[in-house]
């Protein structure tokens, strides 16, 4: 098994898929010779040439719209939005077009494409390089939404996304890119879309998370075990749409308490969907209020490090929220 960080895992997934399937191409801003502003596509341009690894102008609408056209034509484009914060000019293409063409054509057209987007704060990116905007897309029927938190999942899920017949929004938390290395299975290992993972077993409460919050929740769980004797079960959702409600409900049935954690703001956020699902489906099993720990109600992450720290959710805040819930 190779030890990779998330960025290397993502690069490796694209490389293997491009090698395996000549219909796979990569397009986006600076993805070619430079290899992407984060280095996710490094080496691909030299290996596959400047058509299959295509630098686009600064045109997010085009990146999404042309990816859709290419997918209609039979290719499997992997489009990169340089930052999730810059996806909005492409919103029309993603929401009006990419998510709907299969339905509106009664199944005649399909658009197997992936839109990769670095999201999330904690890297001094301020308002426009830190956003967690997944809920715009999780509420859009027709899209699949994936947000891995480990190198193995990043690689396996990206491979699954590229092979998927539907459009997949692939959220990569930029703080996790080089945060740690972990084992990634060798060979052609695909992690299925739509399956959550119990990252840590526990009996006292369940923490539902994804992306960078997985790392934070696991650290929090260790603190809770050590200092409080509380065993938290950490469920990494990995895929936000379609949501693995089975794993969520099984965990709630076991612990009776649910803490939902995400970096995006709370109001109307993805956590509300999980909370509502638990309230509707597992009411009888609950032994405390479904609790959400989410980003503050400000438009985006402010810049100064003190302000950013104030914004970000880390292990300490998860511990605090979990303690309160555990004591309920």
């Amino acid at each position, binding site marked *: 098994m190779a030890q990779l960080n998330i960025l290397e895992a993502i690069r490796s997934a694209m490389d293997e898929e491009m090698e395996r399937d000549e*219909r796979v191409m990569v397009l986006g801003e600076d993805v070619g010779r430079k290899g992407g502003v984060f280095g996710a596509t490094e080496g691909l341009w030299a290996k596959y040439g400047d058509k299959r690894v*295509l630098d686009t102008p600064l*045109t997010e609408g085009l990146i*999404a*719209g042309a990816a859709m056209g290419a997918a209609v034509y039979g290719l499997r484009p992997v489009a990169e939005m340089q930052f999730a914060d810059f996806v909005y000019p492409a919103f029309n293409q993603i929401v009006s*077009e990419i998510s709907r063409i299969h339905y509106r054509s009664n199944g005649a057209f399909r658009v197997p494409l992936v839109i990769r987007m670095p999201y999330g704060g904690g890297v001094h990116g301020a308002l426009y390089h830190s956003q967690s905007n997944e809920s715009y897309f999780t509420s859009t029927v*027709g899209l699949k939404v994936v947000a891995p938190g480990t190198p193995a999942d990043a690689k396996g899920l990206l491979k699954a996304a590229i092979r998927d017949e539907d459009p997949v929004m692939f959220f990569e938390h930029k703080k996790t890119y080089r945060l740690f290395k972990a084992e990634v299975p060798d060979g052609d290992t695909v992690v299925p879309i739509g399956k959550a993972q119990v990252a840590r077993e526990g009996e006292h409460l369940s923490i539902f998370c994804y992306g960078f919050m997985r790392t934070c929740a696991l650290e929090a769980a260790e603190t809770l075990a050590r200092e409080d004797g509380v065993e938290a079960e950490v469920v990494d959702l990995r895929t936000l749409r379609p949501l693995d409600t089975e794993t969520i409900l099984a965990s709630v049935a076991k612990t009776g308490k649910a803490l939902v954690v995400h970096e995006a703001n709370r109001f109307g956020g993805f956590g509300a969907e999980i909370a509502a699902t638990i309230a509707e489906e597992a009411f009888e099993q609950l032994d405390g209020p479904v609790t959400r720990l989410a980003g503050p109600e400000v438009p985006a992450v402010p810049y100064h490090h003190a302000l950013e720290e104030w914004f970000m959710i880390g292990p300490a805040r998860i511990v605090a929220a979990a303690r309160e819930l555990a004591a309920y």
Partner: protein
Amino acid sequence: MTLSEKEEQVSDSKTTTRARHQEMGLSDDDVLGMYRAMLLARAVDERMWLMQRAGKIAFIISGQGHEGAQVASAWPMRKGHDWMAPYYRSIASAMTFGMTAEDIITAHLAKGDDVSSGGRQMPGHYGGARYNLVSLSSPVGTQVLHAVGIAMGAWVRGDDVVTMTQFGEGTANQGEIHEAMNFAGVHKLPVIFVCENNGYAISVPLDRQVAGGSVSARGAGYGMPGIDVDGGDVLACYAAAREAHERARRGEGPTLIEAHVVRLTSHSSDDDQRRYRDPGEVEALKERDPIPRFANELRDTGVLTDEIEERLRAEVKAEVNEASQRAEARRDPDPNDAHERVYAEPIPGGGTAVPLAPLPGEGH
């Protein structure tokens, strides 16, 4: 001028006119075929207005006045091979691309087996995978990026495939059009942009829409030819489109064609253009109707006779009657089916076995 001189001149002019389509490599059958396609598109369009008035169709957005530019620009495209991303007035070019009268009427009646959407989309949202005609949505201009994406796909793979897209002059102002044309120009993609300029974006006239008054002039900024053509001159439109098609196939890149056409009807069945156009202006449009104009040209060249005209019109009428009857007899969509085809069918084996998506020429 003597009488004989005059006769000679008339005869010269006939020879010259006749030579026009022949010089383009079009046979008499070709131009009659184009004329018939225009007649058929118009007849289907008119029939659907009647059906709308009769309460059978909820909404119509018409292509009347655009048929010449549409049939002619789509004519050089290779059916079942080249691609088209149409817009909501593209009835005549969608039909030139392969949609039948029955397909069009079935779609407008929103029947369950409509090839465009199975009754899911409003009228005027042309599309058909079997015809390489990309399904259209309603926010204007989005399809132009899809055309560029298809052209990009062909370019990446090295396929000899040309993509055409159509849009109005109002849509030409959308940011996505700028993104599309710039990108196509950068990489010399095999795509043809056809702007059908009818002078109005619903109610707002050209001078409030297009700075400088010309869409084709923008081609220069994108490194592509911007061709201004009289959209009522069918052969001129054909020549422009054919040159653009050949240019694309030679690897020389995209072309922007601005065809000046007339919108003979209101914007849609929900609009009344008398509220913003003078009666004289609306009346004068009829003189620019491309159908009688092309008929006159074909008569002048001797290709079209009364007999042929009668035959074509009878054929078209019968075709539309039959198409309407068959379309009306089709099944309505089933609400129990409305949940289906939201996502593509899961792949056996959980996503590891990838069936090859068909490429052009491999069927759909």
